[in-house]
């Protein structure tokens, strides 16, 4: 009994621990309690009965209905996006190159070479390299072509005819 009185004092001072409050609540849920504590019983009962209050039902709005409104928005967005793309594509100058005033435009590893002389040097070097690789790669191909041309019967005949005509014209 003294214990409960002490706990009650602590409780109303707001300094009871969780365990102490549980003890008080259990005590006040009993049928028989000491008379001097009777007046506090309604307080603890009130808290217990408030715990039983439940919320009204909330019906989650029908998702199907929500989905119906989406297609309209999608179409409008799609139309505006398509229009925007079209607008941009048609109006923008297509090539970045068209914008440069300089004769040469060079980027090395993403960095622009602004000095025109250096840019020219580098660009010519690169083009030459590529051309060289192509020339070397195609050399056998070209040689074969040349040989084929030389072995071309028609050509040989034509050349001979031309020669004969020349000789004939000289003699005459």
């Amino acid at each position: 009994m003294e214990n409960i009185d002490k706990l009650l004092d602590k409780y109303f001072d707001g300094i009871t621990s969780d365990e102490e409050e549980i003890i008080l609540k259990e005590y006040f849920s009993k049928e028989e309690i000491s008379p001097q504590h009777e007046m506090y019983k309604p307080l603890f009962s009130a808290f217990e009965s408030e715990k039983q209050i439940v919320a009204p039902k909330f019906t989650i709005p029908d998702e199907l209905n929500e989905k119906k409104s989406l297609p309209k928005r999608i179409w409008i967005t799609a139309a505006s996006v398509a229009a925007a793309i079209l607008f941009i594509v048609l109006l923008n100058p297509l090539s970045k190159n068209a914008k440069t005033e300089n004769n040469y435009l060079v980027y090395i590893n993403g960095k622009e070479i602004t000095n025109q002389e250096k840019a020219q040097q580098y660009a010519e070097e690169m083009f030459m390299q590529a051309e060289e690789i192509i020339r070397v790669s195609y050399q056998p191909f070209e040689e074969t072509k040349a040989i084929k041309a030389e072995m071309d019967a028609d050509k040989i005949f034509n050349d001979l005819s031309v020669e004969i005509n020349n000789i004939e014209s000289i003699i005459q």
Partner: protein
Amino acid sequence: MDAQQFQLQILCYSDKLYRMARSILKDESRSQDAYQELMTRLWEKRKQLEKLENPQAFLLTSMRNLCIDLLRKEQENGEISPNTEYNAPNPYQLVEQTNTVSVIYKMIDSLPEMQRTIVRMRDVEDLDISEIAEVMQITENAVMANLSRGRKKLREIIIAHQQNERKVYGKYR
């Protein structure tokens, strides 16, 4: 977040949220309206709710703010201020009530909103001090101070009520 997730993650706090509304608004039908309104707004914003770190604190704070806003609007319209301390109900009126629990409700409702909400969060919802601090957005010390004030006030009201009962009905007990 789909309907099922909303059910599991948000609607599990329904009862606490409704009781919070009831405590602040002190009116059954307005509490139901407030609750429905909060739920509707939460459903509309359900995508953002997926990232909530502390749903309980967020939801309870939202409900409290919604209710306080409601009361403020009514105050602007010339109705009762939410924060003034009510005078203790007339002891004779209280004595006429036969149901002592509802008398207690009235006593609790007579506390200023902050004390009342904190007392209920502690004694009805069983939240700890730190959780209450998050919802009320005040320090833990402030929570304890308000809790102590609220409970002390309740004790005074209970004792005063008791003494009045004895005065009026003493000779019949």
